[in-house]
């Protein structure tokens, strides 16, 4: 009944290295499962010689083209270098989010350390690529053109802060959405169980939270897909800044 319990990690294979815990946990298992499922969909299900794709292959190809178009639209043709990164991020987050819908599973993306790591991968990629490709010109990202000189320092300060807080907003958005969604579902699910325990016609009131749970389930499904999309989309936009820093 504890809505927080679903987020706790359990050690499935304890492993301690130099006093640090590296155990294979439920979280690690579902990360690996997500990788296996993505590999299944995009490698095993894709027949190299299929002129007419099968069902699973169509899905894989649609996802490929969807993400490829997204990268191309947001970051240009030169952004296609980062297509594997964006595709991996999108698929990993999407599958992790969707696995979380299955009862008794664990939602990897409901942990801030995971989403923050993914966001930091993007952040440092942007930083490294931005300076490697543009050198000092990358700093133009913080100096929007056409701003009066009087307010420029303030604008630059805001731009720098907004750039540095990107990984926070990037990661917290996903983390909070998944966390809140799962808590919500668990709370309403708990109401169903509690109300079913009522005597006589009282048990019928369980229908209300049950209906709410069904509705939230649909909403959360949307959120799960949407957050994966938003994460990938923002990654593309940040990469675009690294490749084309002039506003």
């Amino acid at each position: 009944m504890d809505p927080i319990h679903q987020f706790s990690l359990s050690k499935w294979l304890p492993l301690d290295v130099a006093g640090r815990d590296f155990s294979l946990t439920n979280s690690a298992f579902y990360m690996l499962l997500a990788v296996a499922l993505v590999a299944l969909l995009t490698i095993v299900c894709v027949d190299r010689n299929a002129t007419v794709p099968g069902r699973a292959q169509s899905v894989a190809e649609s996802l490929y083209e969807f993400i490829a178009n997204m990268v191309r639209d947001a970051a240009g043709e030169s952004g296609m270098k980062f297509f594997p990164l964006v595709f991996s991020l999108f698929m990993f987050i999407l599958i992790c989010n969707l696995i979380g819908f299955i009862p008794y599973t664990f939602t990897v993306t409901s942990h801030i350390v995971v989403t923050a790591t993914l966001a930091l991968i993007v952040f440092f990629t942007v930083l490294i690529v931005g300076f490697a490709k543009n050198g000092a010109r990358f700093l133009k990202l913080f100096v929007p053109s056409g701003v009066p000189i009087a307010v420029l320092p303030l604008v630059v300060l805001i731009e720098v802060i907004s750039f540095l807080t990107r990984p926070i907003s990037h990661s917290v958005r996903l983390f909070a959405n998944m966390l809140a969604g799962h808590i919500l579902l668990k709370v309403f699910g708990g109401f169903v169980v509690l109300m079913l325990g009522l005597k006589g016609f009282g048990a019928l009131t369980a229908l209300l939270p049950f209906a709410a749970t069904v509705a939230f389930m649909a909403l959360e499904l949307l959120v799960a897909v949407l957050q994966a999309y938003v994460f990938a989309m923002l990654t593309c936009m940040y990469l675009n800044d690294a490749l084309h820093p002039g506003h």
Partner: protein
Amino acid sequence: MAAETLNTELSHEASGHAVFPPFESRTFSSQLLWLAISFGLLYYLMSKVALPRIAAVLEKRRLTIASQLDDAAVMQAKAKDASDAQDKSIADAKTNAQALAQRARDTLAAESDAGRKTLEAELEGKLAAAEATIADTTAKAMANVDSIATEAAHAIVERLTGKAAGADVVASAIAATKQS
């Protein structure tokens, strides 16, 4: 829920009070390690295997479709040529047939014209012959009329007068009557 109670709960493990699991820093090292392993593996698989493969499949399909469209265009051009040739031969045949029909019509018309002309000539000949016969017969008949009139006149004169009339008188009388 039974399975979960069997497992060691990291958040409840050392300290007595429960920490909100996503903020339990002692689980971070494990999560980071396995995230690095799994995401690294995923990135490797995607960039080295999956995406190049899908790209190759899509490119191959694009080429196949393009070449088949080209083939189809060639076939279509061929079909159009064939249909043009067919149309032309039909038109030629039609012209030929029309010419043939015209010639046949002309021949038939000439033949029937000639036939008609000979028939007309024949008929005219027959008509002329018939007319000549009629004229002949009329002349003969007219001659007979003279002799009949003479005989009749002789007989009438004899009956009336009791004596024969002079032949020259009767002849002149008849001639005078015919004159009038």
